[in-house]
């Protein structure tokens, strides 16, 4: 088995210990860091995303895959920086004000990282102004999560705050979580709705490609 396939398998099986050595082996073999990232690590996370979307695996499997990805990136990231490789995009994510639920948000974050995004996680209970402040020149997408129907209106308020700050045209906005639908995303003027973690990451790639 070639080392890139081994890396992809290690991601899928959550082998966070052995994967560091495997990344070093791949680098020793002269494989470009960006190829290791895309054809090894991201390929593995893509399979995880697909299996999760199809209901073949569950959150704990995604967690251990993301942990393995993080271990691998400890070795690979300095090499990527040296070679000037850039992330797929920059994504700001958070659960809206009043809502303290973060499982879904964390899963989306893992899937985004698995697609090569740089993700800034603002955490839970995030007020509109904090989303606004976090937007920088290189921010591509702002993602908001809400599980509770009572906190859903905060998504609209956050979009309005981004608009008032004159930043609405600079970023795409995605929403997700148990309390929202694609229809609601349209109503409040978001650019997209992520029905689950895998679809959210796929949508993020589509949005930055436009």
């Amino acid at each position, binding site marked *: 088995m070639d080392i890139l396939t081994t890396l992809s398998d290690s991601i899928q099986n*959550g082998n966070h210990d052995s994967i560091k050595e495997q990344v070093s082996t791949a680098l020793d073999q002269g494989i470009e860091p960006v190829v290791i990232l895309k054809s090894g690590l991201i390929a593995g996370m893509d399979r995880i995303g697909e299996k999760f979307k199809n*209901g073949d*695996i*569950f*959150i*704990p*499997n995604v*967690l*251990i895959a993301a*942990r393995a990805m993080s271990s691998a990136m400890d070795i690979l990231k300095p090499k990527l920086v040296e070679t000037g490789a850039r992330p797929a995009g920059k994504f700001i994510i958070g659960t809206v004000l*009043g*809502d*303290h*639920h973060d*499982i*879904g948000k*964390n899963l989306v974050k893992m899937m985004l990282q698995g697609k090569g995004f740089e993700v800034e996680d603002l955490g*839970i*209970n995030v007020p509109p102004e904090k989303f606004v402040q976090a937007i920088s020149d290189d921010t591509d997408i702002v993602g908001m999560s809400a599980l*509770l*129907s*009572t*906190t859903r209106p905060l998504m609209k308020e956050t979009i309005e705050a981004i608009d008032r700050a004159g930043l609405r045209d600079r970023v795409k906005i995605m929403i997700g979580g*148990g*309390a929202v639908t694609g229809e609601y995303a349209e109503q409040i003027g978001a650019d997209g709705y992520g029905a*689950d973690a895998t679809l959210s990451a796929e949508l993020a790639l589509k949005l930055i490609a436009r």
Partner: protein
Amino acid sequence: MNGKERIITALEIREPDRVPLYIHGINEKPIIRIARNLTDDLPEEKEIYEMDAVEQVKLLNALFLLHEEYEIDGFTSFEIGDMVNIDDTHIRDPFNVVYERSPVGIPVACEHPISDSDDLKKYRAPLPDPRHLLLLNLARDRFKDTKAIFWMMRGSFVRSWRLAGMENLMFKMFDDPGFVHDLAKVVLEFNLASLEQVHAAGADVLIVEDDIADKNMTLVSPDQFREFINPYNRVLVEEAHKKGMKVIRHSDGNLWGILDTLLDSGYNGLNPLEPQADMGLKKVKDYCGDRLCLIGNIDCIELLPDGTPEEVDSTVKQAIDDAAEGGGLIISSSNSLHPGVKPENCVAMFDAVKKYGVYRK
């Protein structure tokens, strides 16, 4: 029939005189807003922890009153007085779990006392405190056996992840399975002692409240559920049945992946059957309505907050058409009556059960 007889009959999958009506959970604001139809003696709208003792008594009275006047057949009781204030926004439970208060929902666990096996060895688990049964005692004395008294008990998964953190618990399922089992045993020991107390205090129905799914799927795999969680909850089912209590399983979300396991575990009922999570009443009734009483399903995400009373009326009628035949249906909302629901829609739900839910023999 009185409310208790109605509930017990439905849980035995037999037809009572009418479909029973039940409130699984309700926040302060909807209590006050619904009770405005019944009394002026109400506190201002705020959270219970912001109320003084007089206001808290008024709130409790309003809760009891609306159960009486709208003929709600069961009453949900749970531990009260068990939390200690740390500061304005944080509270601590007897297990030493710290929660952050939320103005729009239940407090969320944010500090977990047990990370690993070493922590668990040093951990001193609490014993259930009979003083925390106050709500159950008051309800029993108020309703005097005319309504079924439910007791909400946190199950193995929820209590374990609050103790250890959810992501950590999931990692441990791979890294240290023995820890996950040992933690579940600590939880079970507490729950069994608590069961003794709530049974002695007169509870009729045990709710094993153990959210294990989101709207798409279970949070852990069905195999992990069968290995780490269900065996411990199943002991509660068996022990409660030995005491003559009924047992219902509460979990949000899509439960199809573990429904056969739940059926095999001997539960009498399942709640809250969220329509958005593919837990449609007709589909579940067709699958297992002869073995499991169905409780809930009236949508509290879109319908009760944003719908009209007429839409609620027709939804309840449809639910009864779909699942009442042969018994085994209790109408309730698809989760708690939260601050976003319209009071007139809640009243429409209560009224519709009495309008359409009478069994004709």
